[in-house]
């Protein structure tokens, strides 16, 4: 399970490569992906309050609230800790994730009623994140190596100039055949992503709204994910976001969960 970067969605924690290629659509696509990666790195640590709204096909909605902290790790995936605040009866449940560049992530869950921390091993990345329309795959670290890119065209989206790039997952276990990403030319972050299922039908659309510049990084305050097949939707919102925060390693240790 990878969900590290729900706190800085679709951000990248890798070194920028300055190799230049001849401008084929593939190389241009890759270049744009690297620009996004570059634009998001170096944030050190992040803290925010999050709210998730699940909306079913009939418009009924429920809320979940959580607090999250993330520490940027050089040369590997980030470490993150989510503390659930709402619904009230799961308040205090914590999830710690160490994402990795290679191999499965490490994950621990602390359940207050059991007063025990459990390690969770899962090989599935197509699973949904807390029954929302976001899957772990959408929220997990979008490492450049995991995709093949292809630049398609320039486009205007909501009055902003964007590059439209297609990303094809290399992993056969991916739930998608393709993603189409609209990347803002100015702040280099995605404004919209379309997800295509294994039959190459449009499955979901994510819209990234209200980008704010926090220090030197751009972060959306809201992502709305619509599932076109189930007609359900999920909204993720961030509040009190702080970037550049320095966290101790010990805060991301499984033994710290029960504290």
């Amino acid at each position: 399970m990878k969900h590290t970067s729900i706190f800085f969605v679709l951000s990248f924690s890798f070194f920028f490569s300055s190799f230049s290629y001849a401008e084929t659509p593939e190389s241009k696509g890759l270049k744009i992906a690297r620009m996004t990666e570059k634009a998001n790195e170096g944030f050190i640590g992040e803290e925010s309050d999050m709210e998730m709204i699940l909306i079913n096909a009939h418009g009924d909605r429920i809320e979940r609230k959580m607090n999250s902290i993330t520490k940027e790790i050089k040369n590997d995936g980030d470490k993150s800790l989510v503390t659930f605040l709402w619904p009230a009866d799961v308040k205090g449940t914590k999830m710690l994730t160490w994402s990795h560049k290679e191999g499965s992530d490490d994950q621990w869950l602390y359940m207050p009623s059991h007063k025990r921390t459990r390690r969770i091993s899962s090989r599935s990345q197509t699973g949904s994140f807390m029954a929302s329309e976001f899957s772990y795959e959408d929220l997990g670290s979008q490492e450049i190596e995991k995709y093949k890119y292809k630049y398609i065209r320039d486009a205007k989206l909501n009055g902003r100039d964007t590059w439209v790039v297609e990303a094809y997952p290399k992993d056969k276990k991916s739930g998608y055949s393709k993603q189409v990403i609209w990347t803002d030319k100015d702040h280099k972050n995605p404004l919209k992503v379309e997800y295509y299922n294994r039959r190459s039908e449009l499955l979901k659309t994510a819209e990234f709204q209200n980008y704010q510049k926090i220090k030197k990084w751009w972060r959306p305050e809201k992502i709305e994910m619509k599932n076109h097949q189930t007609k359900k939707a999920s909204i993720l919102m961030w509040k009190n976001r702080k970037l550049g925060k320095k966290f101790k390693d010990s805060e991301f240790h499984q033994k710290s969960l029960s504290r």
Partner: protein
Amino acid sequence: MQHSTHPFVNLIVQRPKTFLITGLIFIIALGLGAIGMKSDFSYRIWFEEGSDRLALFDAFERQFGNDESAVLVIHSPSGIFDKDSAELLIKMSDDVWKVPEVLRVDSLSNFNWVHADQEELIIEPLIPDDEPLTDELLQQRKEISINNPSILNYLISADAKTAIIYGRLRPNIGTKPKYEEIVNGMRAVVNKYKDHTDHSFYLTGNTFLTHAFNESSQRDAKILMPLVFGLTVVFLILSLKNWGGVFIPMGVIALTVIGTLGTVGWAGMVLGTLTSIVPQFMIAVSIAVVVHVLIAYYQFLSLGMEKEEAIVLSFSKNLRPTLLTSISTTIGFVSFTGSEIPQIAEMGAMAAVGAFLSWILTYWLVAPLLVLLPKPKKIKKSDQSPEHIGEPSPRAIRYTNWLDKYRLPIMLFYALLCGVSIYGATKIEVNSDPFEYFDPTYSLSIANHFMEDHVGGSLGPEIIVDSGEKEGIKDPIFLNKVDKLQNWIGSFEFVTKTVSILDILKDMNKNLNGGAPEEYRLAQDRREIAEQLFLYTMSLPQGMDINDQMTLENESLRITAMWNLHNTNRALQFVRDVQDKASELDLNTYVTGKNILYAGNNPLVVNSFVTSISLAIFLVSVLLIIGLKSFQIGLLSLIPNTIPLILGASLLPIYGIYLDIGTVIVGSVCLGIAVDDTIHFLAIFRRQIGLGYSSKEAVAYIMTYTAPALFTTTIVLVLAFASFTLALFVPNQNFGKFVAIILSIALIADLTFLPAMVLSLTRYRNPSKKA
């Protein structure tokens, strides 16, 4: 002999072009309605929109989503847990992902197997595709599968030889799934593998059930249409002995069918499983009028009459009897229009329009057409008048004497037969289960029977339990009661499996407490339950919805029972039993599901039968009283027509056939058709009496000259309806079979009981033959 002419017919003959053109405009306008005609084979066409039952089911689907699925069953004689079968299962599961509209695939290969290892919770697919499938691993997974209540009889059979892959369809809100594409996609998956393996494959699920309604209708139309059509042509050639004459009735049939379908379009009705066979029986039913008229026309021509005169006379002579018989047939169908089962009501309305339309078209179009067409050349001259074709044949006289002598024993025989039959008819059972709706040779029936024999029931009721408050289902007191209810439901011998969120909670509790089997139980602390549910939602696979087990605000949950029960009366009893048990446990429940919806049609089937047959009997007797201008004869003529209905009804339980949406129609339809023979019989009888013949002479005359015609028309109808037994849709089969049986009995009764009765009644007031 002087023949009377009818002013209406005279008018038509005088202004043939006007009538022909207006008639054509009328039928074209009517037929245009067919362009916008819609077809619908979904479950909804069997239920009245706005009814409480449908509202309850809609409420259920709104809360829990609709769980339409396409089910692929894989049977391996050597067991599923060998390398060959496991690999096949993985490949086929992957292929089902690519079938149109499939949102999620559930199979052993991607079942999220959660298990505990000390302080670690491991979630992994039960049959992995990224590890070598060793015998050791597979053997271990086999043990896990058949011991896991969430998997057993769901994804794997108890003997581990049959695995099931579910392709869950995406919800279609306000639209319908494209069943055809899904079915073709699933069939393509099977075809890809079936020739390369000794495994056998079966396809089922509600997707296939809905498609079967459509597919069987199309296939039945394809088989029955030409058959009924062919029979009709043979009949026309035999009865008209004139090739040119064959085309006119065919035209009437074609226009009747077009006009009937047009009415469907104009009226905003939809063509469904039951209504789509109407065109087939329209062919058989609509031919009678035009044939009667044409036979008379050719007879008059053969007497050397001029064309116009022959037309006027033949149409005038038949105006009254054909109008009567058309109305009686129409009544048979009209009697269903009040049914609370929309398909039956629409079938009635459609066929009623068609039955009467054939009469209208015969007079409006055929009469002017004959005026405008040149006179047929090959009509043989005959010296005999059709009214005086001669004396009764010696055989008819002998038969009439026999009838007269034994008239009382004959009537007594029928009375006894009816007495026994009424007793037999009390054994009739009502059933509305769609499980047996398709011929046993049809792939879906084979698949369903295989599923029931090897895995368990694939359909069943949904029991919704409402905790009465938000987040209420996390209350251990409530859950303990639900657990009791679920166990009680599972204890019925026809229930093969029950599924609810409780199974997941128990499994979660086990895994969070070291994995010991005795920990497979509900946690007794609200917070613990809440966290377990939370953990479950965090490990849901893609496309899987937690709200298919419980409502969004955790207020209600659902227990799904799978059963092999096909007795819908028992199903309705089950619903009442659950309500009783729930109030005993102080739980607030309701029971629904498609099975229960169908079962709920039982009382409506009975209602449809009772109201339609009462209405038909009433209207037909009014018609007979008016038509035969005698209260007494009108009512008495009902007797020979109710006898076949009673005899036919007694045959239902003997054949093991239920009163269902197919057989429910038989009674009124048969009454409407069978009474035609009685009308013809009595009309001629009265005419002969009026001409001064004795009743015996009149009967002998009928046996000589009318009986063969009645015989031929009935045979054609019997054969046409008997051909329905070739249908895939079992209610069509039974409908055809019983209409054929009852019409045959009706003919026999008209030629034995009816004359015996008439001879008894007129015995003491025989007028002597006029000088």
